[in-house]
């Protein structure tokens, strides 16, 4: 048979350039295929540690992002009222000198009047350093809005966290349990991991109110009631303790379970009993006498009682064996039956203890004890936003880490493994710095880990020093700041007003604020002639909703047009077996007058004369961000990039190497430093790992530590709340500090539960689609076809009770507002929960979409229902976790009512906002490619088709 010839040897491209993806925060390696200098195709880089060749829906659509018509094209200055969208294009010189003219006087008089906050920024080690040198205490990224509970809960407990900072031992784990995990950071690695588990038939369990995505493929699904994960976890702990299914050896060796807790009433109660050298100690089982916690050969007695002081272990057992934690006692509240809880506990115990494994890998611990092998418990966990974004999220995260610890499943084979620079104890992190002095830098970084009330960022009068009230009594452990409170606090003048708000990649007037409508009001509110927030500088690559609310726009490049460094100083791309960092570099040149924000920031720093950014003669120290990436040294020999230092062979430490970026580019835009084999597990206690980490420059001396079942920093805050110590919380916060700062993981009802009594009984959640990242995806011609509409999914109980039909709309209200939205039925959903895809809804006129685009007409946000403040009870408190300030958006309670047909103009979601005018932008983008019509058919019939192609 005579078959047509088919082209099988297509030339894919004339050049492949390897860089790092930025279609979300996952940081995969990509091969960008270029044809005649333009991007032809993007695929995953097979050699890259994060994605190993695979790429998600967003990554493969990057070509539509770098050509999106929404790209800004030149610096802009506001000419009309704020929010009117009236801008004029200005030169970079004008833009930079304007910014300097605004900022310089602030630095010289009151640096705190500049608030610099960044959104989905991956250059926090630069932006933080810049703000530190400017001297304002008001800096953070958007972690407080995102998932700080997971980070802080983990670091305070195990010295590492979920997020992308660790991962299950995918090769060995036999049971993988997820709590509140949907698409998130570590997007492709989790998918790759689940794929590995599925390929070998390992068991996957998901605890999640919504059964989609990872929960959909899970072998078992527990449709828990939102905000009760902590209670379920503590009940599992109860079951395990009751049956004695815990890893005593692990607890006695690697955790603070054998430390003694002061029993005597007073300012020391609940703190560790310390010896003359101020060191906590254990009771040695061999002698019955005190022995150093880090002494060689010591066999700590978990059950010790010494001079009336009992061990952490005993406190813990007493707490969790209480009948309050029995499955039967928590079942109704969690929406999970007692037998299901008991079955899950049994399954955990069975895999951890009956299917235990051991690697034949000798190693030596920090005490000098030698071990012939590495025992492991093949149970692993992952958790993220679902448990994090609640007002009890910090304690819930701690509870989950405690469960891991009790099973002996952290840093052991088959369990959960941390990635360098983690594990890293609190003690190895800085404390927060905040004291601002005109014309001077801060004495250290803004963000850190508070050990006691002494570390809080408070002014002499006891008021919060930071505009977001970070590290104050309201949220002492706010390790990522509270970006969601910056605008509300600045607007309220609580704790004070600011002059200039400087934002990067943060869509505050839309989906990056808790209550978008209120924030829009605040941004445009006036005090006399001037705006309450007088100046707003914003940098973004795209015409987002926030652009219209800024006074000066510094247009950023797209991710393929820029340098970036994904640094060990910040959030690297490490794997459990290797530290890793990466770069972005301009694989294409911008075709418009835009600049990499980080280069702009360095130039602003130079013009402002900030320390570290100018030479002695006052000239700029760095030409641009690329120059900084190579030549900046945070500590001698330690810079943003660890690879190819010195003569090109030095790793971690070494002099700057002018060829460093070329070497990275040649290496696929990343570098890996491999963890020695004997250091792969038990890292916090493994001498070989500690030595390797010091060699690499992760820290200056070995930092072995014990996992914190009992948190002394938390107890110190409880003591303060009980009236001990010189620094005292305001009275209205005493009760909640006493509750939230319990040194053992506990559960309390999320603050939002109060709303049920006001007639808002239903939980309302959002989830990210795997194919969309926040707002960015909607401007993408391919991705928006996949998800250009969202619905509120209603569980069967609500659907049937109110007689909902396909195509219906519902009025959804909360204590903060009302929205009218399209609904759909979902059976695989907790019966008291509704949810929707996050950030599909767009403001009319934004992102270069047609005002009639479905994203702008039927698309909606839940944000309009969420308040950034708790209901007023005499104090202005943020709607956040009381420990960390994590925005508690999953606490949200609502009421859902069917909108009778004819009662509402179906087709338009409410509330509607006025259309934003189109700012000057690049245009172009995916060709319209008009569809077929008669005239065209005729032209083709006449053979004219080729002309129009």
């Amino acid at each position, binding site marked *: 048979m005579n078959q*047509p010839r088919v082209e099988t040897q297509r030339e894919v491209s004339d050049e492949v350039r390897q860089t790092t993806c930025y279609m979300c925060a996952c940081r995969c390696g990509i091969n960008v295929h270029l044809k005649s200098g333009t991007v032809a195709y993007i695929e995953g880089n097979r050699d890259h540690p994060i994605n190993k060749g*695979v790429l998600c829906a967003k990554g493969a659509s990057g070509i539509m992002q770098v050509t999106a018509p929404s790209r800004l094209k030149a610096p802009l200055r506001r000419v009309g009222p704020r929010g009117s969208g009236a801008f004029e294009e200005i030169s970079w010189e004008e833009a930079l000198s304007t910014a300097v003219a605004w900022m310089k006087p602030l630095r010289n008089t009151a640096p705190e009047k500049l608030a610099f906050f960044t959104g989905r920024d991956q250059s926090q080690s630069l932006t933080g350093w810049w703000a530190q040198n400017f001297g304002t205490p008001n800096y953070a990224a958007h972690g407080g809005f995102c998932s700080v509970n997971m980070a802080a809960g983990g670091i305070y407990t195990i010295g590492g966290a979920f997020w992308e900072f660790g991962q299950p031992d995918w090769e060995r784990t036999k049971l993988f349990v997820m709590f509140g995990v949907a698409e998130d950071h570590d997007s492709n690695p989790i998918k790759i991991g689940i*794929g590995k588990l599925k390929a070998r038939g390992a068991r996957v369990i998901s605890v999640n109110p919504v059964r989609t995505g990872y929960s*959909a*493929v899970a072998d078992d699904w527990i449709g828990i009631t939102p905000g009760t994960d902590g209670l379920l976890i503590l009940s599992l702990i109860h079951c395990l303790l009751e049956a004695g299914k815990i890893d005593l050896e692990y607890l006695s060796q690697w955790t603070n379970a054998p430390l003694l807790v002061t029993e005597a009433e007073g300012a020391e109660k609940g703190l560790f009993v310390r010896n003359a050298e101020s060191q906590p100690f254990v009771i040695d089982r061999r002698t019955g006498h005190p022995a150093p916690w880090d002494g060689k050969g010591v066999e700590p*007695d978990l059950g010790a009682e010494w001079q009336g002081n009992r061990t952490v272990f005993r406190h813990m057992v007493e707490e969790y064996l209480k009948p309050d934690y029995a499955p039967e006692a928590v079942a109704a509240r969690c929406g999970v039956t007692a037998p299901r809880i008991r079955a899950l506990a049994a399954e955990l115990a069975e895999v951890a203890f009956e299917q235990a494994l051991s690697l034949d890998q000798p190693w030596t611990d920090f005490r000098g004890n030698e071990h012939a092998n590495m025992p492991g418990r093949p149970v692993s966990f992952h958790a993220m936003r679902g448990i994090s974004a609640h007002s009890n999220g910090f304690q819930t995260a701690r509870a989950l880490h405690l469960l891991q610890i009790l099973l002996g499943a952290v840093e052991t084979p088959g369990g959960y493994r941390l990635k360098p620079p983690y594990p890293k104890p609190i003690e190895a992190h800085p404390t927060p710095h905040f004291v601002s002095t005109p014309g001077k830098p801060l004495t250290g970084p803004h963000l850190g880990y508070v050990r006691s009330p002494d570390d809080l960022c408070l002014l002499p009068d006891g008021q919060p020093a930071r505009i977001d009230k970070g590290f104050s009594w309201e949220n002492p452990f706010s390790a990522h700041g509270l970006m969601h409170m910056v605008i509300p606090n600045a607007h309220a003048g609580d704790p004070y007003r600011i002059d200039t708000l400087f934002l990067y990649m943060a869509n505050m007037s839309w989906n990056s604020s808790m209550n978008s409508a209120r924030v829009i009001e605040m941004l445009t509110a006036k005090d006399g002639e001037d705006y309450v927030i007088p100046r707003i500088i914003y940098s973004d690559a795209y015409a987002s909703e926030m652009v219209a609310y800024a006074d000066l726009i510094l247009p950023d490049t797209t991710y393929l047009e820029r340098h970036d460094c994904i640094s060990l100083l910040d959030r690297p791309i490490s794997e459990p077996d290797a530290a890793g960092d990466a770069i972005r570099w301009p694989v294409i040149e911008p075709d418009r007058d835009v600049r990499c924000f980080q280069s702009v920031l360095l130039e602003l720093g130079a013009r402002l004369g900030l320390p570290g950014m100018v030479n002695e003669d006052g000239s700029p120290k760095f030409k641009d961000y690329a120059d900084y990436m190579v030549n900046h040294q945070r500590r001698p020999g330690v810079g943003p990039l660890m690879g190819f230092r010195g003569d090109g062979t030095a790793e971690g430490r070494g002099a700057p190497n002018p060829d460093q970026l070329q070497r990275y580019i040649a290496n696929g835009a990343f570098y890996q430093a491999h963890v020695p084999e004997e250091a792969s597990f038990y890292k916090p206690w493994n001498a070989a790992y500690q030595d390797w980490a010091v060699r690499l420059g992760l820290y200056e001396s070995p930092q072995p530590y014990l996992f914190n079942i009992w948190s002394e920093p938390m107890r110190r805050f409880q003591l303060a709340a009980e009236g001990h110590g010189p620094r005292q919380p305001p009275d209205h916060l005493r009760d909640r500090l006493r509750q939230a700062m319990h040194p053992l993981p506990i559960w309390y009802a999320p603050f939002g539960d109060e709303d049920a009594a006001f007639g808002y009984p239903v939980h309302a959640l959002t989830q990210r689609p795997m*194919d969309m990242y926040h707002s960015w995806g909607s401007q993408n*011609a391919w991705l928006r076809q996949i998800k250009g509409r969202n619905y509120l999914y209603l569980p069967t109980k609500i659907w049937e009770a109110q007689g909902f039909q396909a195509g219906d709309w519902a009025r959804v209200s909360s204590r903060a507002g009302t929205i009218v939205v399209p609904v759909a039925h979902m059976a695989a959903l907790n019966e008291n929960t509704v949810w929707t895809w996050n950030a599909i809804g767009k403001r009319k006129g934004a992102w270069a979409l047609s005002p009639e685009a479905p994203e702008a007409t039927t698309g909606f946000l839940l944000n309009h229902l969420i308040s950034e403040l708790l209901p007023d009870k005499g104090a202005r408190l943020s709607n956040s976790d009381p420990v960390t300030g994590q925005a508690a958006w999953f606490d949200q309670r609502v009421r859902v009512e069917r909108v009778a047909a004819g009662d509402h103009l179906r087709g338009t979601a409410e509330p509607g906002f006025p259309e934003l005018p189109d700012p000057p932008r690049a245009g172009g983008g995916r060709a319209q490619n008009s569809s077929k019509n008669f005239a065209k058919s005729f032209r083709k019939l006449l053979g004219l088709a080729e002309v129009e192609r």
Partner: protein
Amino acid sequence: MTALPNATAKKLGLVIDLDTCVGCQACVTACKGWNDAGIGLSDQDPYGADPSGTFLNRVHSYQVAVPDGPAQVVTFPRSCLHCDNAPCVTVCPTGASYKRAEDGIVLVNEDACIGCGLCAWACPYGAREMDADQGVMKKCTLCVDRIYNDNLLEEDREPACVRTCPTNARHFGDLADPESKVSQLVAERGGYDLMPDMGTKPTNKYLPPRQKGPGTADPLTPLLDIKATGIAGWLDRMLGKF
């Protein structure tokens, strides 16, 4: 050409694991990107009120009411199944639609396509989409321009959707060879055909979701009656063992 080959030497195709597919849509845009660069897959009104475009692979999401247990959710990628008995081929009036004798891939020769749409009508699976700009029928080529392409590294010679799939839920291989990885997966996991009664004899197979539900571990037995012994008794028992 619209006569189907009597038999094909190979049956290249995909095996899609519904137990593993999380519905991330990665395969959808990898396919779109690769084929847009190759044969062109247009979009209409890309930033407008009614966007629409040609995609050769789409991922649906279903909820399934099951007899025991809560409803399940299954994400379901849908693309050409490269049927043995492909009705889309025989209906084609021009010979543009054909099934390759050497490997069983069903293709469209765009140079011969008149865009009548009949092949799309004939396909029960919605595997073919007329490109509104080019006026010719588009379909999954099983990346015939990748799998034999000497310009690509050996390990990259697989369909773009398979290469990109983060969970490895998509497998590519020769289903005529019982020893191939894909054939063995089908045998082990009970791979099945879509709408077998339509008589199309699809090459692509789907692996069903595995049985779901609570675990089967023996219930935990309390160490002792804590109410009776108190915590002290528990500690004795527990730490005595230790």
